[in-house]
C-alpha cells in the first residue's frame, strides 16, 4: 500500500515537472496591423531588446513608406504628379528597383505604380472604403494613362518619371520587406529561431526546438485553418486573400486586390499562398498570382521564380504546384478538390 502511494507521488511529480516554455511571444501593433514576433530559446533580455528594435524599425518604415499618410512617399508622389523629379532615400531607391524587377517578372500583374487606381477605389483609408465603387469611366481614364514601374528612372538619388500618372503604392510588397527587415534585426542579435508574422504573413527561421515551425493557412471561406505546412531553415509564407480588405455595396463584394489590366478587383481567385525565401518576393508573387487567376497563375509563378504556390479559386477548388503539394497537409475533412499543376 505504502509503495503504491509512493508510485503515485512519483508519477504526479514527473507530470507536474513539465518543461517550461522557451517561447518569447510578443504582439506589436505597428504598420496598421498586428505583428507577432515569436522567438524560440533566446535569452530573455536579448529577445526583449531585439523585439524593441524590430518595433522601432517597423514604425520608421510605416512613416517613410506610407502611401497616403503625409510623409516621404506622399511627397515623392506629389512631385511625380507635377512632372518633377524628387529626391529619394537609399531605401526608397532600393524598393523602387526591387518593385520594378518584380513587376517586370510578373508581366505587370504586380504593379506598385497604380497608386491612383487604389486611391480611386477608396483603399487609401485606414478603415477601408465604404463604397460605392468608382464609375467605369473614371477607371478607364486612369488605365489609359498606363502607369508602370518602367516609367521610373533613378539617378544620383533623384527619381523622375516619364509618366506623371505613376503614383507609388508599396502596399503589395512593403509588408514583405518589413518582415525581411525584422528577421534581419533578430539575426543581428543572434536569434536564429524565430517567426515574424505581420498581419498574417510571415518569415520563419530556424526551428521550434526539436521540431519545425508549424504554420496554419487560413481557409478563405471560413474562420478556421484549411491546411498546414511545416517550415524550417528560412522560408516566407505569404497569402493574398479577397477576405483581407473589402467593402460590400448593393450586395456585391469588392476586394482590395486590383487587377492592373481591368482596373477592377481581380476575379477568379479567393486566395493565393506562396513560399519563398525572401518575404518581399513571397508578398509580391502572392499578389501577382492572385491577379493572374486560375488560368494563368502557373505561368506567372514560373516567370517570378516561384516553385511553391497554391491558389484557391472562387469556387473552393485548390490548385498547387508539385513542390507545394509535397509538403502541404489539409486540415479539413473531406479535403477540397485539388489539382496539381506542373509549372
Amino acid at each position, binding site marked *: *500500500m505504502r509503495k*503504491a*502511494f509512493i*508510485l*503515485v507521488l512519483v*508519477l*504526479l511529480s514527473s*507530470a507536474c515537472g*513539465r518543461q517550461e516554455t522557451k517561447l518569447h511571444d510578443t*504582439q506589436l*501593433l505597428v504598420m*496598421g*496591423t*498586428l505583428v*507577432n514576433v*515569436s522567438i524560440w530559446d533566446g535569452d530573455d533580455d536579448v529577445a526583449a531588446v531585439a523585439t524593441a528594435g524590430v518595433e522601432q524599425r517597423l514604425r520608421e518604415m510605416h512613416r517613410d513608406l506610407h502611401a497616403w499618410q503625409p510623409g516621404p512617399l506622399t511627397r515623392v508622389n506629389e512631385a511625380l504628379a507635377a512632372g518633377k523629379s524628387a529626391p529619394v532615400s537609399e531605401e526608397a531607391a532600393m524598393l523602387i528597383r526591387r518593385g520594378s524587377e518584380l513587376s517586370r517578372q510578373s508581366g505587370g500583374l504586380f504593379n506598385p505604380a497604380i497608386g491612383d487606381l487604389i486611391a480611386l477605389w477608396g483603399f487609401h483609408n*485606414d*478603415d*477601408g*472604403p*465604404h463604397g460605392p465603387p468608382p464609375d467605369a469611366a473614371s477607371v478607364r481614364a486612369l488605365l489609359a494613362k498606363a502607369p508602370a514601374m518602367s516609367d521610373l528612372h533613378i539617378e544620383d538619388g533623384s527619381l523622375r518619371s516619364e509618366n506623371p500618372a505613376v503614383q507609388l503604392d508599396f502596399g503589395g510588397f512593403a509588408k514583405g520587406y518589413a518582415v525581411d527587415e525584422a528577421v534581419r534585426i533578430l539575426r543581428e542579435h543572434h536569434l536564429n529561431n524565430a*517567426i515574424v*508574422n505581420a*498581419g*498574417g*504573413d*510571415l518569415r*520563419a527561421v530556424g526551428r*521550434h526546438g526539436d521540431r519545425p*515551425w*508549424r*504554420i*496554419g*493557412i*487560413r481557409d478563405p471561406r471560413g*474562420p*478556421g*485553418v484549411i491546411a*498546414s505546412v511545416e517550415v524550417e531553415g528560412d522560408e516566407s*509564407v*505569404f*497569402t493574398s*486573400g479577397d*477576405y*483581407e*480588405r*473589402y*467593402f*460590400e455595396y448593393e450586395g456585391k463584394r469588392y476586394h482590395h486586390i486590383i487587377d492592373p489590366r481591368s482596373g477592377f478587383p481581380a476575379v477568379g481567385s479567393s486566395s493565393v*499562398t506562396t513560399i519563398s525565401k525572401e518575404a518581399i518576393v513571397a508578398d509580391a508573387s502572392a499578389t501577382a498570382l492572385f491577379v493572374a487567376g486560375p488560368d494563368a497563375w502557373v505561368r506567372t509563378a514560373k516567370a517570378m521564380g516561384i516553385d511553391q504556390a497554391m491558389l484557391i479559386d472562387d469556387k473552393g477548388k485548390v490548385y498547387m504546384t508539385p513542390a507545394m503539394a509535397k509538403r502541404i497537409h489539409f486540415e479539413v475533412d473531406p479535403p477540397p478538390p485539388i489539382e496539381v499543376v506542373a509549372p
Partner: protein
Amino acid sequence: MTASAIPYRSIAGALRPTPGDIAVALLTVVLLVGLYLHFWSGVGGEGERARIVSADNGVQIVPLNEDRTLTLHGPLGDSVIEIHDGRIRFIESPCQGKQCIHAGWLHSAGSFAACLPNRISITVLGRNRHFDSINY
C-alpha cells in the same frame, strides 16, 4: 503442513493485492489520463484560454470556461467580445467590414479573429498549440 511451506504461503499472501492496492492503482490510472488530457492533448476545453490584444488595453489572457462579455476600446470605438461555453467571438465592432464578427465562434487552439481597423485581435491558446503561427 511442513515448516518450509509457511514462508512460501506468507510471501504469496503478501503479493496478493489488497482492496487498498487496487484502489490506488485505479486512482493512478485515472490521474494519469486526467493529467494527459489536461496538459498534453489540448482536448481539455476547460483548460483553454484566449489572448486578446488591443491597442488601448494591451494584452490580456482570458479563460474560456468563464462566461462573460468584455468591452474593449479601440481607435474607432468599442468592440464587444463574448465568451460562452468554451468559445469566444466578436459580437459588436464599429468597423466597416465586420469581418471580425463574420469570423464567428472561435474554440480550437490557434484559431483567431481580428478587427484590424479597431486594432483588436483574439487568438485561442491551447495547452499544446497546434500551430505556431497562422498565415492569412
